[in-house]
Structures are given as C-alpha cells and as structure tokens.
C-alpha cells in the first residue's frame, strides 16, 4: 500500500488524534487572534450603544449547556455592555436546561460588574447589580411559541412571578412594563429552533427590533431574515461573539476560544485539501489504467 492509498484510507482516529493535539497545543500557547468585525455584528453593537439609560432589553437565553462554549460568551459580553450603559434587562430562558445555567451566568456577570473597567476609552465604575432594579429573570415555561405569543399580551400572563418566585408587580423595574411595546429590543441567543418562533410569532406579530446570537452551523439559515429587515443583526458562532468582544473592548471567553478554533479550522481545511489531492491523484491513476472515471 503506497502513501496515496494510506492517505485515502486514513483511519478517522488519526484525524481525531491530530485535531485534539492541535487543540491542546493551541490552548497552551498564548497568542492573540486578530478579529475582523462584520456588518451584522456591528449593527447589534450600534443599536445597543445608541439606547439611552433605563431602556429595557429582553435577552432570551434559549440554549442548553450543549451550546455553552459558543453562546455563553455572547451572553456575557452583551449583558455586560447593557449594564455598563445602565440599561435594564429582562431575561427569559425558554430552553428546558437553560434556567440554571442562566441564573449562574447572571451571578457571574454581576460579580464582574462590581469591578471598575474601561471600555472604548470610557471608564465605568463598578456597581452592584440588583435583581428587580437592573434585571428581571422570568425563568422557563414550556411551549415557547405560546410563551412568546403570551408575552406580547402581557409578561404577567405567562410569568406572574419571576424565576425566584417574586411577583412581577413587586419588582420596581417591571412597574409599567407590560409587553414588547415597553422594551427597546429583543436579543435572542439561541442554539435551536426557538429562533424561528421569535421571528414568526414574536417579531412578525408584535414588530419589535430583533437581533440574533446563533451557533455557527445555524447562522447561514437566518440570513433571509436579515435581508428582509425582520432581524437587525446576527452574531454567528464563537467568531460572532469574538467580534462583539472586540467591539466592546471586553476580551473574554470568545476571543480566548478563537485561539483554539482557528487552528482547528485550519486543520479541517488541510484535511479537506489533502483528501482532494489524494482523490485527484487516484482518479488520474485510474484513468491512466483505463479504470473507473
């Protein structure tokens, strides 16, 4: 068996091994990946940056821990941007494994907010983030299509209390906040088909500004909504999150993760190229021998 045959019949375990070695080495070596920001991500940043203090953003954390590596960095950076700008946030988590993870994320970002930071040349003093004043976490309810529709009537219809059992009317930031008319935009960070329902049942029916944070494999599917104006921005995968971190000057999990994703992508591309070289050589050899085309 020559090298060509070996290459064409390469055991997939060698590919796995090579990929994991590359990931481990990339994780161990400190280097920074330069990030180019896309228009779709820039538009989300610009929209949120233009909101006046006390405006309300609904952040829908619609993913399970499966997608945590890709989507958690988006949540962290957007929520921190909102709070640094003194915006208020309503969190929902319409994915069944999401609420515990969302609760933990809120605690982590709250800790980070206690520190003084400088983003884009603006110094932000650390401050305490208070439940009911700076944010409300509505939690989880099954049947997301109904929940999205119900919140269009009144948040209290589907969520009489927040995740922690406090009636919505006792939360200061929720006074006078009834439905989507009272919020500035919805940011849906999703790893599944809940996004379809936010677009068709939410944005389509109640006409609020909607932006999406999606896993890399989902992104291409939602470009039509960007083209039609139903969605004003899309953050795609870890790269989208890294672009957002670049814009907010808040390097975190995504930019760090790009150190691993980038070499991994290069490895995958190399394997594709190698596979094709082998394929063409093999085909030419067969042609010369008068075999199969």
């Amino acid at each position, binding site marked *: 068996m020559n090298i060509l045959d070996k290459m064409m019949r*390469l055991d*997939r375990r060698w*590919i*796995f091994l090579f*990929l*994991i070695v590359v990931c481990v080495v990339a994780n161990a070596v400190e280097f920074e*990946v*330069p*990030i*180019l920001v*896309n*228009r779709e991500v820039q538009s989300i940043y610009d929209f949120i940056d233009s909101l006046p203090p006390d405006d309300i953003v609904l952040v829908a954390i619609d993913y*399970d*821990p*499966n*997608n*945590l*590596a890709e989507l958690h960095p988006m949540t962290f950076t957007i929520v921190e941007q909102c709070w640094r700008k003194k915006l208020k946030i309503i969190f929902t988590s319409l994915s069944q*494994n999401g609420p*515990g*993870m969302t*609760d*933990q994320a809120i605690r982590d970002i709250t800790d980070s907010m206690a520190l003084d930071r400088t983003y884009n040349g603006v110094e932000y003093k650390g401050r305490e983030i208070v439940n009911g004043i700076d944010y409300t976490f509505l939690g989880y*309810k*099954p*049947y997301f299509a*109904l929940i999205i*529709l*119900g919140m269009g*009537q009144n948040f209290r*219809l*589907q969520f009489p209390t927040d*995740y*922690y*059992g406090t009636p919505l009317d006792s939360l200061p930031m929720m006074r006078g906040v009834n439905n989507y008319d009272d919020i500035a935009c919805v940011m849906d960070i999703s790893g599944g088909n809940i996004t379809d329902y936010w677009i068709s049942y939410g944005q389509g029916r109640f006409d609020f500004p909607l932006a999406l944070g999606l896993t890399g494999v989902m992104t*291409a*599917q*939602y*470009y*039509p909504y960007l*083209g039609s104006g139903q969605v004003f921005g899309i953050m795609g995968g870890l*790269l989208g999150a890294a672009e957002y971190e670049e814009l907010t000057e808040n390097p975190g999990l995504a930019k760090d993760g790009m150190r691993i994703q*980038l070499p*991994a*992508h*290069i*490895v*995958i*591309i190399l*394997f*594709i190229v*190698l*596979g*094709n070289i082998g*394929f*063409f050589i093999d085909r030419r050899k067969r042609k010369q021998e008068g075999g199969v085309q």
Partner: protein
Amino acid sequence: MKRQIPLMLVLVFGMFLIFQYFIPHETSEKAYEFLLDWITIIGIFAMALAIWSLFRVTVAKVRTRKENWGYSIFTLVGLFSMMIFGWTAPNGEGWGWYFIFVLSVLMAIGMLVQTMSVKSGRGLWAGLMFVFLIIAVLIGIFDNAWSFHFMSAEPLENPMFRSFFDFVLMPILATTFSLLAFFIASAAYRAFRARNLLATLLLVSALIVMLRFNPYLTPIFGDYMARTSNWLMNVPNLAAQRAIVMGVGLGIVATALKVILGIERGYMGKG
C-alpha cells in the same frame, strides 16, 4: 362520536384562532389569553403522560433484559433523583436524614421495578419496597432538617439540585456536543471531494466561508475572501434559504388547513 367530537373541537378552535388574529377587540384578546392558558394546562398533562411513558418503557427494557438495559437504571435514578432534589430543600446548614430519605425513595422505586420485572418472588420485592417506602415517609414526616416545596422556588437553591446540574448535566451535554467537532473533521475529510460540478461548487464555497474566518489570510487576499464570503451568504445562500422558508411556510398553512378541516387526521392516532 369518538371521532366527531375531536374533529369538531379542532374545527371550532382552529377557525376561532384564525379569525381572532384579525379582531383587535378586548373580548377577542381575553378569549385568546384564556386559550393560551388552556394549551399550557393541557401541555402539563402531556408532560405527566410522558414521564409515565418513559418509566414504562425503561422498566420494560430492564424486565426483558434488552441490549444496554443497564443504562435504563441510570435513566430512572437520574429522573427520580432530580425530581426529589427539585422538590426538596434543606432548612438550614445541616442535612439531617436527607440522604437516607433520597436513598430510601430510590430503593423503593428499584424494588418496584424489580417487582414488575421478576416472574417469581414478587412478594419479597414488594415487601422490601414497602419497607423502604415506610422509612422514606417516616423521615419525610419527622426530619426537620429539610422540607418539601412543591409551589415555591426554594429547591432551586438546593445544593444537590445545583450540583447535579452544574457538575453532572452541564459537562455531559457540553462534552457530547463538543465531540461534534471531531466528527465534522472526519466527515469533511471524507465527504468534501470535488467529484462533480455541484460538489466542487459546494467545496469551494465552504472553503471560502471557512477561510473568511481566518484573519491571518487577510494580508494575502485582502478583503477579497470577506467580500466573496459575504456575497455567498447574502445572495445564493439567501435566495436558497428564502425559497426554503417560503416553501415551508406554504406547507405549514396547507397542513394546518387540512387539520382544521378534518382532512388530515393523523393526530387522532389510527385515523
């Protein structure tokens, strides 16, 4: 009658919801909210049914000793452990007899499964089940270190509930999903071959989109890769996706009409 009533209900409520969308009146909105509540309530019954179904299927697997039946035991332990942790919470620092209670409940369920699985000696297993059940009930009544919470959020702070979620479920789900990267690498190596024109187009498009993400290539290609990739996403991809979305939308409308008018009756089972 068994068939006519469901068909009539679907027709009435289906037509009502279609017309309700176009009636911006308070009464119409109230009726709509009322129906939304009903759907949630029906859904909760469906969830109870699903849990019962899972229990039955899992027990049947254990009883017949089907392949990989051992994993079914973990399914049951996971299901009932999380239910117990999600309905209980410690009242202070100490745990009291909490873990004995959890173990007793799990053992009682194990004995129930065993009773349903064996052909002889059922009395012994049923007796053991009652012993464990009595232990659990006694601990539940007399142990003040923890309590049940069916209608409040206290169990969310139960360290056992949080720990199982944070340190068991989250790593398992994240690990399973991360394996995808390895399978994608392997599949890309085998499947992305320029066998014909269409496959070549797919391959070249995929490479351009992947390479766009690579900022190190910018000095070589300038913004050519980014512009080409954006064009691919915004023109051919958008056109194809839009066609799919429209097709799916029309299909949904057609299917919904068929269901409402009673032409499509698959949801009723054998019909």
